[in-house]
């Protein structure tokens, strides 16, 4: 029991501290942005330290809570990534909430609760545990998407997200129950054994298909991506940043854990399903992004496309494939948060500064921030020496080595297409003169700028010196294949 609690300590700690932040937010009369923000960041940092201590105190191969929960290297990698994501989002939100005059208490607590859910997803080796984590994350994000209650678009986003999310949960649960009915277990290791020993019946196959659909919904893959553009556009921008990296990475964690782990014996059946979804996602996401004039919407389609790239690594499978997905999640997280940070920086009031034309001439007036955005755009497009290049390189190399050349051909062609809309922003910033009366009057946003700086440095460092990060991802990826 004691060992169980130690393994769960990071989640327990973060949940407790989230409640403390919630209460503190309610107790403080007027909105204490600085205090609560600092509290949230400290809570996330403390959880990180706890995670480190808990990881040291437990055996990475051990199972806890009757075999439902693990704290292996794979889980540790993702948890650390989630904590980093949450901390960056909290920092991005600071100036934004203050400027738009929304109370920070509940907001920050919800971000932290969502993080607890994500962490649970990464550790669960039982489908029920994973589902509980998934719902905790999803419910928190539904509310966060609608947090700006004075904005109609924010309402709309929350409502759409909730309705479609509930539907996908239904599909996912139906899949789970079919699998349980066919095999009699929700434990991933047992599931793998049972599926390997006998030829699976139709109910198990339908279960797997529906499970895949539920997961593809969470990573926003075609054709289950339809909610993404509307929700990303309507949600408060820091939450969009959060949704585009945190829950997506969490969904990939469970995708890897369940499909590469528990459902590996059925790989022959699902691999084509996922492969085709990956190809469709890359094509649809990139092509649709071409015609967007709203930067948030463009980034929404871009994040759909990136889910497609990461699915390529999942299809490749094996240690190299899993390793490349982990590395890509890290790369994508710092890049995308940086890019959204820049959008936030430009949104001076309400929803101004969102269209591509607003970016004209920014390089001249804000050289440092524009340079950061240049790096993020190059990284998303996969141009060296940025992190995005290395991320794509390892993803595609894994897929080629696994024999999925056709998928990589699609991915590379679509990467070329994506350069059009990424470089359009660069073009506006660097080569177009702004007309005198600029709507994008920037107000001071020191923390947003710091996040952009940090992400910019990370994009360059990972791009130039990928080896240590790759080694970390490689060490962490080892656990997933052998549950």
């Amino acid at each position: 029991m004691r060992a169980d609690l130690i393994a769960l300590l990071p989640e327990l700690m973060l949940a407790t501290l989230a409640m403390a932040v919630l209460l503190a937010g309610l107790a403080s009369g007027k909105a204490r942005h600085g205090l609560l923000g600092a509290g949230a960041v400290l809570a996330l940092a403390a959880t990180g330290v706890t995670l480190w201590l808990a990881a040291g105190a437990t055996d990475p191969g051990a199972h806890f809570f009757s075999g439902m929960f693990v704290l292996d290297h794979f889980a540790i990698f993702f948890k650390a990534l989630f904590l980093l994501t949450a901390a960056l989002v909290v920092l991005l939100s600071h100036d934004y909430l203050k400027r738009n005059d929304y109370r920070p208490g509940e907001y920050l607590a919800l971000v932290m609760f969502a993080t607890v859910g994500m962490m649970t997803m990464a550790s669960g080796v039982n489908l029920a545990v994973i589902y509980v984590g998934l719902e905790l994350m999803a419910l928190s994000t539904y509310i966060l998407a609608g947090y700006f209650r004075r904005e109609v678009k924010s309402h709309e986003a929350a409502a759409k997200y909730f309705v479609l999310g509930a539907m996908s949960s239904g599909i996912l649960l139906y899949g789970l129950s079919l699998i349980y009915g066919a095999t009699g277990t929700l434990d991933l290791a047992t599931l793998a054994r049972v599926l390997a020993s006998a030829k699976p019946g139709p109910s198990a196959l339908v279960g797997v298909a529906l499970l895949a659909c539920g997961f593809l919904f969470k990573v926003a893959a075609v054709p289950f991506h339809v909610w993404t553009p509307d929700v990303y556009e309507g949600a408060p921008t820091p939450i969009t940043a959060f949704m585009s990296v945190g829950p997506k990475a969490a969904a990939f964690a469970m995708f890897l854990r369940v499909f590469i782990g528990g459902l590996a014996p059925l790989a022959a059946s699902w691999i084509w399903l996922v492969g085709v979804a990956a190809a469709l996602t890359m094509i649809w996401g990139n092509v649709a992004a071409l015609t967007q004039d709203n930067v948030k919407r463009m980034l929404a389609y871009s994040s759909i496309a990136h889910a497609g790239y990461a699915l390529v690594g999942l299809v490749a499978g094996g240690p190299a494939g899993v390793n490349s997905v982990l590395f890509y999640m890290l790369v994508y997280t710092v890049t995308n948060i940086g890019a959204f940070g820049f959008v936030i920086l430009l949104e001076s009031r309400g929803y101004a500064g969102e269209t591509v034309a607003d970016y004209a001439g920014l390089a001249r007036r804000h050289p440092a921030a524009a340079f950061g955005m240049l790096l993020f755009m190059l990284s998303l497009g996969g141009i060296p020496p940025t992190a995005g290049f290395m991320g794509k390189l390892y993803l595609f190399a894994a897929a080629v080595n696994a024999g999925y050349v056709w998928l990589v051909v699609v991915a590379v062609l679509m990467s070329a297409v994506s350069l059009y809309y990424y470089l359009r922003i660069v073009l506006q910033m660097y080569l177009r003169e702004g007309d005198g009366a600029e709507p994008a009057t920037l107000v001071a946003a020191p923390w947003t700028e710091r996040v952009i700086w940090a992400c910019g440095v990370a994009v360059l460092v990972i791009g130039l010196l990928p080896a240590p990060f790759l080694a970390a991802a490689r060490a962490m990826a080892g656990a997933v294949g052998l549950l």
Partner: protein
Amino acid sequence: MLDLLWLVPALPLAGALALLAGALRFGKRTTTAIGVGSAGLTLAAVAAILVQYAGMHGETVARHVFNWISAGDVTVDFALRLDPLSAVMLSFVTLVGFVIHVYSIGYMHTEGDRAYARFFAYLNLFMFAMLTLVLGANLVVMFIGWEGVGLCSYLLIGFYFDKEYCAAAGIKAFVVNRIGDFGFLLAIFWAFKVFGTVDFAGMATALAADPGRYAAAVTPIALLLFVGAIGKSAQLPLYVWLPDAMAGPTPVSALIHAATMVTAGVYMVVRCNFIYRLSPTAMLVVAAVGGVTAIFAATIGLAQNDIKKVLAYSTVSQLGYMFLAAGAGAFAGGIFHVFTHAFFKACLFLGAGSVIHACSGEQDMRRMGGLAKKIPVTYWTFMVATLALCGIPPFAGFFSKDEILGRVFAAGAGNLNGFGASYLVLWALGLAAAFLTAFYMFRAVYMTFHGEFRGTPEQWHHVHESPGTMTWPLKILAAGSALVGLLGVGTAITFGTDLNWFESFLHRVAPTVEVEHAPALATEWVLILLSVAVALAGILLARRFYSGAEAFAAPQRMAERAPAVYAAVANKYYVDEAYDRAVVRPLGKLARFSWKGIDTIAIDGTLNASAFFTEIAGDLLRFLQTGNVRNYALFVLCGALAAAAWLLL
């Protein structure tokens, strides 16, 4: 201290980054503190490292800085290697580099703050790249440095980029170097394919273990590496960029285009001597290119009137000597000449800079003369360095040049690799080049410093000695030009006693290829006396032609008697014109065709068409994104049904 080897390239890099980051804001004082300070700290670090290294009997120290690339079987570490060869290079690169940084304070002081900061940023960046090149423990790290120095060379040649010929010279240097770099790259790929590693130690071990296995690959790899060296070290036929590179500020000419970067090719050949010594063909090619370049460039130097151009052709010629040495198996001898040449050629260039500075920017020697009285420090240091370059004992150049000619003669007489006759011819060329060198250098001395001033009285009035930041570097380098030769006194000079510290220090990493029958002591003495006599003859001839009452009369008569020959030499044998006709213009035509024909019509057309259809597809997808949540739900449902159906069927 050896664990801090990474500091050596890191310090100038930090300086460069700080200056680039602050380039818009820093005043001259801050720039000087950062730019010269980082070069000084580098020199201090190198001094500390070398003091410690001196006690280690020349063993190889490898320091792994970080694992840089690892993909499949390819692993490239950012690793540094300190051995006698890189130690020698480190010593003079940092010393001469620092001295030239100091000199630049005075030379560049008339520039604006921003240009001044830009200059020192590039100079620091160059130091970083050069030190990376020297310390790299494998071909890839060396190549980073190699490209880095090329970039800095380009940036600094085109430093006055608002002048068209400067920008053009920068581009020329860059493009010509690309040709060489391409060869170098192919060599790296080939080496990796054959040896499975690009690490110097790893390749040497593999070759030592089983030379027969790699016999077929050794010659092509060596030749491709040499193509790289030809580009970087300005040898025939790719030397054309170096004379034009004199468009850069004079400290740059001294540092990059005389003392350090251009010797990188020699360094690389010597670094890879374990490959070259297995390929007699490659050795002969290296020697032949070097020997022919030495005499070819020396003849062009005879008729140049721009003081920096004379020195530039002299550099090309001296680099030829270095390759001649390497090709004759005298790897340590080649490096020794690199070492001494760094001192006296840097001194000459800085002296030329001081002269130009004194004459308010005048570079044409026909409008100089008699400057010795007005700028004595410049004159005397220039004189010492000239004597060193001419090979007059006991100045540094005498020992290194004599070593080279002696070794080449020995290779000829001892029939090295069965190419004895060829080496004897190359020796004769080298000897003739020594004569020409002495002649054109003293021609420059007489035209610049002696006789009557031939410029305007106003210019004469302005002639002044340079400030201390410029004369002290001259004095230091002149002292070096006079003394450093004593580090490598040939055994014949000491009648068989081995006092050649330089060669024995390098013996572990670059042992000289010994011929079976070394020439007798008497023969060697004859050779030494011959080379000194040849140099003296050149000096005396220059004195007859260019000083006294009859100055310029004799060369004038000769030019009139053989106008075609004179025109050919003065116009550098029309090589630039021939390249323009044979390479540049056809390439220009091809480029124009690619642009107008292929690019605009074929590629752009295809691209625009596909972009058009992609955009239509994007609009279609946009149409599907109705914003209506019922439609979205239908979408999800259809997807789920399709997925389930797929797995079932």
